[in-house]
């Protein structure tokens, strides 16, 4: 087990799961063998003053990566990322990668800070700059002849994976893969918005434009424009609860205050995050539940004779019909 700050080598496994530890100040550890997929590997780690200074990794005799901390990392495809002088650790630096963009050859320069893309520039082989992106600043994208293709606002995908997967041009993907979810984005072509949107909690929210077509989202759910623009006080919770689609119900109910929801009916039982509502002149009761992943509140319709939240929730899983006992889930997401 290695990491940059560890000047120890720990080997685990073998008979009885025995472990031994060897402190290393200066030296080298070489591991060779075959991995779980039967490929021959060699991993050499060099230590200097109790810290890892260099790592070399090869598979089936081919060098896959060579990392010299504070200097550079060279990958199997020839990409070199040079670290900023003096940073010693981390993935600060610049990469250069020869590749195609919009069907033309060129070179992509990328700058990283802590592994995050902060700047990217692509130059075609005829020396025309396709684009130069600097974090958060609007920029234009030009075609091979220097004509403006797109005007872009937003943050390009800056996850660690760009650096790890070859430092490619972010724009050499489909348009919906260009942007980070952390800020609103917009792509204009000839002055017309062709793609725009924003996320909240990984879900689409607000106004979106895709291929020039406008849509409106709430909690990741596409909702009609008229409903989106309807003032919240004019939305009728009882009408919303009658909608067939559970996600649409969730999205619209999320706009209504809990006070107004509570006024629709009476809460007959409460349990953890759940609430069971009984509503006058309604064929069913309403069970409010919280999604464990998105934390969105869903309003599920359960039988009118439901008395307890968990009992109603279990009914939705088929307990009493296909299953006898209440279900205990090993994983719920």
């Amino acid at each position, binding site marked *: 087990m290695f990491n940059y700050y560890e000047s120890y080598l720990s080997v685990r496994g073998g008979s009885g799961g025995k472990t031994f530890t060897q402190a290393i100040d200066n030296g080298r550890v070489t591991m060779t063998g075959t991995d779980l997929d039967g490929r021959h590997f060699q991993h050499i780690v060099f230590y200097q003053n109790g810290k890892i200074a260099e790592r070399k990794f090869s598979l089936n005799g081919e060098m896959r990566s060579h990392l010299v901390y504070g200097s550079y990392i060279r990958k199997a495809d020839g990409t070199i990322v040079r670290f900023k002088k003096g940073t010693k650790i981390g993935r600060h630096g610049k990469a250069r990668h020869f590749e195609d963009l919009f069907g033309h050859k060129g070179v992509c320069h990328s700058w990283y800070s802590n592994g995050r893309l902060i700047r990217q520039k692509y130059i075609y082989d005829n020396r025309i700059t396709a684009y130069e992106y600097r974090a958060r600043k609007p920029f234009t994208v030009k075609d091979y002849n220097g004509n403006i293709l797109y005007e872009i606002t937003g943050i390009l995908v800056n996850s660690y994976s760009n650096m790890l997967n070859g430092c490619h041009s972010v724009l050499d993907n*489909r348009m919906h893969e260009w942007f980070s979810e952390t800020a609103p984005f917009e792509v204009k072509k000839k002055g017309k918005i062709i793609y725009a949107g924003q996320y909240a909690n990984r879900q689409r929210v607000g106004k979106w434009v895709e291929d020039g077509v406008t849509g409106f989202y709430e909690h990741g759910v596409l909702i009609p424009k008229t409903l989106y623009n309807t003032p919240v006080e004019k939305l009728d919770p009882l009408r919303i609860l009658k909608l067939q689609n559970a*996600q649409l119900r969730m999205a619209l109910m999320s706009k209504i205050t809990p006070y107004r929801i509570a006024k629709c009916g009476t809460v007959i039982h409460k349990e953890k995050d759940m609430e069971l509502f009984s509503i006058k002149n309604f064929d069913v009761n309403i069970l409010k539940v919280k999604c464990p992943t998105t934390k969105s509140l869903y309003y599920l319709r359960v039988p009118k004779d439901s008395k307890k939240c968990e009992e109603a929730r279990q009914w939705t899983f088929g307990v009493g019909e*296909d*299953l006898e006992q209440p279900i205990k889930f090993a994983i719920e*997401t």
Partner: protein
Amino acid sequence: MFKYEKAYRQGEILIFKVKSLKGINIRGRNYEKPRRVLNGVIREGEKEGHEHKIVIRTCLECGTKNRLPDIIDENKAPVCGQCKKPLTIEKSTATLEMFGEETGALKTDEPVTLIHPEHKKVELPKGEYVVKVQKEATGKNKSASVKD
């Protein structure tokens, strides 16, 4: 009625690990001829890419054991980190059959993963599973599967 060993839930999708699918009536109320689902999609989402989908982890092309992210990116089918081939269950040992919209059967000789862009992944060990969809009441003594 059937007995299960372990239960998993991802949104409205319920998965029950059973000892054997033999003898279990999983055809549901609306019996239809079993439909083999090669792409592993249990349920289509309202939006493109928002589906509950079974994928493999070990690439059939290069044998790489992939570690999938907790939540996959919208509209991005998971691919092998090494050879970039899609990790669909087609051609793998996993078979998914759906009976209409509400129930299904999954058999697999290798670990598979249930993915969705809004819910965390659910890792399923090899075995036999009953697939069901959560239901809700639509009126007095009437119910339908949850639609989203």
